[in-house]
């Protein structure tokens, strides 16, 4: 396949009267890692949910691995493209152990050697065998997030849609997950679409990124420009500035720009 692995053109999603995504256009090439950043509530998760087939009611054009999402999704696509949810609770059944969560995924997709795969994937996300038979409420926030990543990885997808995969993680586990994703890209040519509010994570892992605000993509840029702090849009500049840490004086400035912007 030569075209982009993920292609989105003029995507618009409405919930009732409100527009969550407003004519978004971007594409991600094979093996590329693309970041989606921006304001809270600007439609990032909604874009991922459309690509994962969880939202049906939208306009525009979108395709994943060459499959037009307006048509019937082949079963193979479900395995090839995996979504890791922002909220680990949404993907983990509260009454199922880690083993059962992963075991059921393996069974649905008829994976061979499920036992070995479960053990290996847990190790890959930094969870030892002692966590395998725990329930979600017996895990810390970061441990639950790692189970959610493991659940996607066990299917060995070629496309990963990640929604804030490291926001609940401490920086050391975050480093492990980022290194793991980098390794999987090198080994398997994995294509990544990564939603995050952490610009440093984007700078570390992605080649390009799009910045969203109020449903729109306000800027698409190379990560290199992000690293040099040379965005085109004022909003992106604010994001970069605020990334440097908390500064009470900044808050007033941002508030002001939000009123005028």
């Amino acid at each position, binding site marked *: 396949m030569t075209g982009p692995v993920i292609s989105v053109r003029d995507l618009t999603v409405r919930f009732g009267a409100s527009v969550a995504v407003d004519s978004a256009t971007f594409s991600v090439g094979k093996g590329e890692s693309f970041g989606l950043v921006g304001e*809270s509530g600007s439609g990032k998760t909604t874009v991922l949910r459309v690509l994962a087939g969880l939202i049906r009611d939208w306009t525009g054009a979108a395709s994943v691995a060459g499959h037009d999402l307006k048509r019937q999704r082949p079963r193979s696509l479900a395995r090839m493209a995996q979504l890791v949810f922002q909220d680990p*609770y949404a993907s983990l059944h509260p009454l199922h152990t880690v083993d059962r969560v992963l075991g059921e995924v393996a069974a649905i997709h008829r994976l061979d050697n499920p036992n070995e795969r479960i053990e290996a994937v847990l190790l890959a996300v930094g969870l030892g065998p002692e966590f395998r038979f725990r329930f979600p409420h017996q895990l*810390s926030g970061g441990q639950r997030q790692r189970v959610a990543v493991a659940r996607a990885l066990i299917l060995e997808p070629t496309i990963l849609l990640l929604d804030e995969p490291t926001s609940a993680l401490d*920086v050391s586990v975050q480093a492990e997950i980022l290194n793991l994703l980098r390794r999987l890209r090198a080994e398997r040519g994995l294509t990544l679409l990564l939603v995050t509010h952490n610009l440093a994570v984007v*700078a570390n892992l992605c080649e390009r990124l799009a910045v969203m605000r109020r449903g729109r993509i306000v800027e698409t840029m190379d990560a290199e420009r992000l690293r040099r702090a040379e965005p085109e849009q004022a909003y992106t500049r604010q994001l970069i500035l605020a990334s*440097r840490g908390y500064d009470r004086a900044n808050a007033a400035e941002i508030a002001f720009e939000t009123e005028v912007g």
Partner: protein
Amino acid sequence: MTDALLTIEDLHVRFDLPTRQVHAVRGVSFSMGREKLGIVGESGSGKSLTGRAIIGQVAKPGVVTATRLEFDGIDLRTLDKAARRKLTGRRIGMIMQDPKFSLNPVMTVGKQIAEAYRVHSNASAAEAKKRTLDMLAAVRIREPERVWGLYPHEVSGGMGQRIMIAMMLIPEPDLLIADEPTSALDVTVQTQVLAIIDDLVSQRGMGLIFISHDLNLVASFCDRVLVMYGGRIVETCRASELDRAQHPYTRGLLAALPRIDAPPGDLPVLRRDPAWMGEP
């Protein structure tokens, strides 16, 4: 410290699981005033459980013990359930790490905030609604009226966090425990929401325990930082001096941070030394 708001001595949290015992918090002691106290440390180091132990919300079969657990002169260990619930609703608030898990899925978010407020005040329904909408606007929720009528699954991750923050700020607590309160917020909204909390500390004298894995944020936002590892506090320092922390564990965490201006490449990960577990 003479005007301590909260004093904890030798706090332990244990779980007796069928197969083994998990000793999650192992002798935590600290004292704080009306300041911004950060708690950092790796996943599973006992940060959330320390917060939950303070508000008396460690789930069964968890067992909490301490030689001292005192809030503003009140011994939290001896309070009965009702008194404790009253205290924690009104004077101590905790923003939980998983906002959507803490919200009732079948009630609109506006109603939930307003009802939580009315439990602890004599406000009328109309007053509670007004206060709720004002607070949603204060935490930078666009279109508060629309969001009032949404169910938890209809709000974005960052909106859920801000809804929890609004809910906890309305009663104007004396102590706020915020567990990763802004991890789902973009950085500009994060700055604005933290400014509200910051002002409550500096103007109203609220005490804040700020649990976060975002070391840069903690260093720039808090006054003091506790570093936890394996259920213990391994280092305490001024937040502004976090980058000069001494403990090899803290240094390892700092090294693992990605940087916005650094080229892509593997990040150093922590190599844990078993000796860290045994240290005081």
